């Protein structure tokens, strides 16, 4: 069963993510993927995360397919206009990639090529709409396609955003545009996540809670100060501070969060960038 089928069957799913290399040596990316083989249902491949130029997510997904793992193609509106986005969506399907996560993308000045031209021809909502239009057998110009793709279209939402109402309105628009599953920004507070889930229950769409594994108290403080839509509660930062084995504590907190949200949502999306061994430990410890 693939990700779509598992969610349709009501299975609690686990996804994680890998970042392609800056360069063409994919050894480390393969090692990261191997650590979660058989433990996760699908692996997201980031699209030049934080606007840092690297090997593409489409190529990364194609490699995962070759390695026998199910990819989720993250695609952002930052670098491509509607012609290139549609083309890459068609290319993905032709290469056997069905899961696509449609994102707006970080602004270019956040990355390592700040002088590049930002594109943002489409946004996350219209990109979702675009993927679904292609499935209907025609492109955005209304031209007929010679063979239509079929996608499982995902989107993102931030349950801990400053203002939750505009987030939910946008989530509603994403569902209306055709989003079939959501992966959330990191959450740490299961009770607040329960409130969020009750606000979006009417959308009847699978939600995978984002779990970002803490490495240190400093990481928690840093995210609270800088990372959009992430709030690490002070008691967790304290716990990390006092722990002698930070790695084990980070895993323990992640397991606790997963246990807290398991009955509320349809899966988890675990992000432990560069520390995929922990992803595997978390999955074992959470009994997933």
């Amino acid at each position, binding site marked *: 069963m693939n990700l779509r089928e598992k969610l349709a069957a009501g299975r609690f799913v686990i996804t994680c993510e890998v970042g392609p290399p800056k360069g063409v040596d994919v050894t480390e990316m393969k090692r990261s993927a191997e650590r979660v083989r058989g433990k996760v249902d699908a692996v997201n491949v980031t699209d030049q995360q934080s606007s840092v130029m690297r090997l593409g997510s489409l190529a990364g997904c194609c490699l995962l397919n070759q390695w026998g793992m199910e990819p989720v193609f993250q695609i952002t509106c930052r670098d491509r206009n509607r012609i290139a986005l549609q083309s890459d969506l068609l290319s993905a399907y032709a290469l056997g990639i069905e899961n696509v996560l449609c994102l707006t993308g970080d602004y270019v000045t956040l990355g390592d090529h700040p002088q590049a031209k930002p594109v943002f021809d489409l946004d996350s*909502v219209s990109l979702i709409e675009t993927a679904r239009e292609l499935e209907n057998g025609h492109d955005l110009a209304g031209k007929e396609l010679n063979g239509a793709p079929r996608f499982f279209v995902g989107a993102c939402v931030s349950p801990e955003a400053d203002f939750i109402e505009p987030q939910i309105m946008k989530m509603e628009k994403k569902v209306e545009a055709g989003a079939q599953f959501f992966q959330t920004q990191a959450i740490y507070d299961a009770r607040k996540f329960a409130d969020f889930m009750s606000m979006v229950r009417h959308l009847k769409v699978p939600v995978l809670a984002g779990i970002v594994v803490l490495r240190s108290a400093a990481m928690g403080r840093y995210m609270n100060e800088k990372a959009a839509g992430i709030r690490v509660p002070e008691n967790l930062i304290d716990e990390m501070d006092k722990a002698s084995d930070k790695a084990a504590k980070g895993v323990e907190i992640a397991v606790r969060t997963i246990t807290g949200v398991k009955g509320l949502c349809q899966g988890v999306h675990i992000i432990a960038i560069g520390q995929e061994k922990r992803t595997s430990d978390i999955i074992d410890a959470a009994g997933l």
Partner: protein
Amino acid sequence: MKAITKQKGLAEIERLLEKESSVFLVGCGTCATMCHTGGKDEVLEMARRLVDLGKTITGSVVIPTVCDAQDREAVSENVKAIDEADCILVMACAYGVQTLALYTDKPVYPALDTLFMGQEMSPGVFSEVCVQCGECVLGWTGGICPITACPKGLLNGPCGGAKNGKCEVSSARDCAWEVIYERLSQQGKLDNLRKRRSLRNFSASTQPGVYLLDGKDGDLK
């Protein structure tokens, strides 16, 4: 709405004028004066700097608005000093530079970089107000332009990059969509944000912009 400009660095101006030994200076009495980039004081200061670089200044004028036909008169009134100069250095927006170039055969050089169309929100603080997208959305955004004020020009609400109400691009800038949300909330018009906005039509602002009142501009695009 004014053309907001900033002066190029002296090193760049020196490179531009590398092969020219005598210069006539033109300032602008409107936008560049407001921006303190090409008013009377700045023209005099530029003249001093160019003399320091070994250039001869044959004359200068601050034209009330460089971007219109006043240039013709200004050029004829200063014909002698302009004739004596190898070139004209224009301390006005790019529109002014191009307009002046219509009225003289001398090479014209820009002393300023034109940043955007905007206004002075408080003394010395300039803000862009319109990117001239050709499809005004202000009617449903509470009078706040997301195409201009959101760096990504998003139409369907905030991107998720805002932190404490500030944009991911600069912590000095409010998230345009949070401001729009608050405004529409006050006006009881949040339904405006529930409507899904489809694709933007970038051909409405294709460069170079052309518009004919008789509607035949389509032929020129």
